[in-house]
């Protein structure tokens, strides 16, 4: 059994840390990671709380695969109520924190309350210290990590930068400089608690029955199912590979989603990124090493990932890789989510060009573009408006039809007019517009399924959402395209009970419904499952998607079918029967 069975609860208000047993019943029903952290939050948070108040809780959750030799098991879930959207929020971060936490003896950490002054936590096996962060506050995440390493040595750290301290709804949490729990303002939750960083060091290990046999079986799986044609794009290219795919299918967001292709795409595609490559880098226990450690000019970064290239590149009409790399590095240091940051800058550019409001920045202006992360993170000048996200900017200045967000979360790098299933995936994602809950573009815009029909899209999206919910709970990285059968096979090597693929799919469905139930309790309804008007009304003008929209009636149809197949009523509310069926 690969759970430690122990949860560490830390109350920052009192400075008290206590150990408690992991709720085994919940672990059985929700596994770990995403699912189990949502379950704890659903049970422990009062409805309607302010996400930036002391009432919110921050949960770090591992899964049954964490710390073992299971390929691609190195990720950690971090969850809270989202300051950006007010929805449930779970993020996934790579690196080495998750395994280290488990080796320290914990399945999870639940952080409550608020420290009187800035602190950071040090979890050293049984010893839990709350240390002053007076000297760290005001510093970027990078220097924060370096200073903590100077003080504590060989530890793994989760840190926030100025964006988290200043409570930006796009503030992320960073680890090992270039890994992020990116979306929904999870970094602002830390900031609101006066918590600058969490460091961990663990001396223990994970025991598994028949460990040598299990290792041999997993090595075979690694060779035959992980390091295969289906997944090795991660090693050969990493996510920048998607730039060419999106460009050729007309779904590369360009100029704030005004177009689906970018003339200068060859300056920001995988070939361009590869020309700056210094080393490939992996998370703990990952053979795929999707990360590209690059250097261009004087700037180095682990990245830029596709989302950064799309949202901060083509979407801002920046066809200069060095500028994108620098923007990426700045965002990582200040702890800004590059998906949201790219969106707000592009939105400001369009509002300026359309004379709606002058933010002093236009498409393609590199110098101004590079000033934005600092202005946003510190809420200075025009950055004060941009810091609030596109929805708030539109409420203040207008342009709501092309404020590209769902539920307040900015849209990732796949144009829904050229991938209708992505539109539905964004609309029904639990934390607002997210591409990680379901990524149907892979088999639709980039595959054999017709992108321009509503037929079959609801079923496609639901299947992916449920499978991913299990994947992010077990925990396996998104970049290993493994089947639920394979997940069950692996989990059965680790758990003291048997689980089938069908049961895992059921667990995924339960998790997805619980996330929806959380949002339902917060007052979210059908109207919140809609996309910006631009997607429904404005025709794209270039490339493969020229002349395309996602007609509202087709979206209505997909959404209605989605609700029906989910067993929700016509307003998207979970039926009592479904709740009973899933033991919610």
């Amino acid at each position: 059994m690969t759970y430690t069975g122990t949860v560490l609860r830390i109350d920052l208000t009192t400075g008290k840390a206590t150990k408690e047993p992991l709720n085994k019943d919940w672990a059985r029903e929700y596994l770990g990671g995403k699912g189990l952290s949502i379950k704890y939050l659903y049970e422990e948070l009062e409805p309607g709380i302010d996400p930036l108040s002391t009432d919110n809780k921050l949960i770090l959750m591992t899964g049954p695969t964490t710390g073992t030799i299971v390929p691609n098991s190195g990720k950690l879930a971090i969850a809270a109520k989202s300051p950006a959207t007010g929805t449930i929020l779970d993020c996934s971060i790579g690196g080495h924190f998750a395994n280290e936490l488990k080796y320290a003896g914990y399945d999870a950490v639940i952080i409550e309350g608020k420290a009187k002054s800035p602190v950071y936590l040090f979890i050293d096996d049984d010893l839990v210290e709350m240390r002053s962060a007076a000297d760290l506050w005001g510093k970027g995440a990078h220097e924060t990590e370096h200073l903590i390493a100077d003080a504590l040595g060989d530890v793994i750290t989760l840190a926030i930068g100025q964006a988290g301290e200043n409570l930006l709804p796009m503030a992320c949490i960073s680890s090992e400089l270039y890994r992020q729990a990116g979306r929904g303002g999870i970094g602002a939750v830390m900031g609101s608690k006066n918590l600058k960083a969490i460091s961990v060091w663990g001396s223990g290990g994970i025991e598994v029955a028949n460990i040598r046999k299990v290792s041999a079986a997993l090595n075979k799986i690694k060779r035959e199912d992980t390091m295969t044609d289906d997944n090795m794009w991660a090693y050969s290219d990493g996510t920048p590979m998607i730039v060419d795919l999106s460009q050729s299918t007309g779904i590369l967001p360009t100029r704030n989603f005004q177009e689906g292709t970018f003339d200068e795409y060859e300056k920001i595609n995988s070939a361009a990124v590869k020309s700056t490559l210094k080393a490939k880098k992996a998370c703990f226990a990952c053979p795929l090493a999707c990360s590209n450690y690059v250097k261009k000019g004087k700037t180095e970064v682990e990245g830029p990932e596709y989302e950064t290239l799309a949202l901060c590149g083509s979407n801002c009409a920046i066809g200069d890789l060095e500028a994108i790399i620098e923007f990426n590095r700045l965002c990582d240091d200040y702890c800004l989510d590059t998906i949201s940051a790219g969106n707000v800058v592009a939105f400001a550019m369009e509002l300026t060009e359309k004379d709606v409001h002058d933010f002093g920045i236009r498409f393609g202006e590199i110098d101004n573009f590079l000033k934005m992360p600092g202005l946003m993170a510190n809420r200075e000048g025009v950055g004060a408006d941009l810091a609030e996200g596109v929805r708030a900017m539109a409420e203040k200045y207008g342009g709501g039809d092309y404020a590209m967000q769902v539920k307040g979360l900015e849209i990732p790098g796949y144009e829904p007019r050229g991938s209708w299933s992505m539109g539905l995936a964004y609309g029904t994602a639990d934390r607002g517009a997210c591409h990680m809950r379901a990524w149907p573009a892979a088999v639709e815009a980039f595959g054999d399924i017709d992108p321009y029909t509503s037929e079959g899209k609801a079923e496609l999206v639901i299947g992916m959402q449920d499978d991913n919910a299990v994947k992010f709970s077990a925990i396996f990285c998104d970049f290993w395209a493994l089947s639920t059968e394979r997940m069950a096979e692996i989990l059965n090597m680790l758990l003291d009970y048997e689980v089938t693929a069908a049961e895992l799919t059921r667990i995924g469905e339960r998790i997805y419904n619980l996330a929806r139930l959380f949002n339902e309790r917060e007052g979210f309804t059908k109207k919140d499952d809609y996309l910006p008007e631009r997607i429904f009304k404005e025709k794209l003008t270039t490339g493969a998607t020229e002349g395309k929209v996602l007609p509202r009636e087709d979206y209505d149809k997909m959404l209605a079918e989605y609700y029906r197949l989910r067993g929700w009523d016509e307003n998207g509310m979970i039926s009592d029967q479904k709740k009973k069926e899933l033991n919610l």
Partner: protein
Amino acid sequence: MQITLYLKGPLKKYGDNNDSLTIELEQDQVAINEIIEQLEIPASSISFIQINGEKSDSGTILMGGEIIVVNPRVAGG
């Protein structure tokens, strides 16, 4: 007739790790999937094929002079 083939990412290995292959075709009326078969690239390993920059059907008949890109499957995003 002659075509240029780019095998992307992990598919490069099916072309002896070359960035691009120039293929001379002796007969006319060759469909792109026949070339894929000759190179022994499993259909399941391909997400989609671009011909001259556009996503194309694998049954497309080649006329000569095309630039063909074969993309691998991707997951996650």
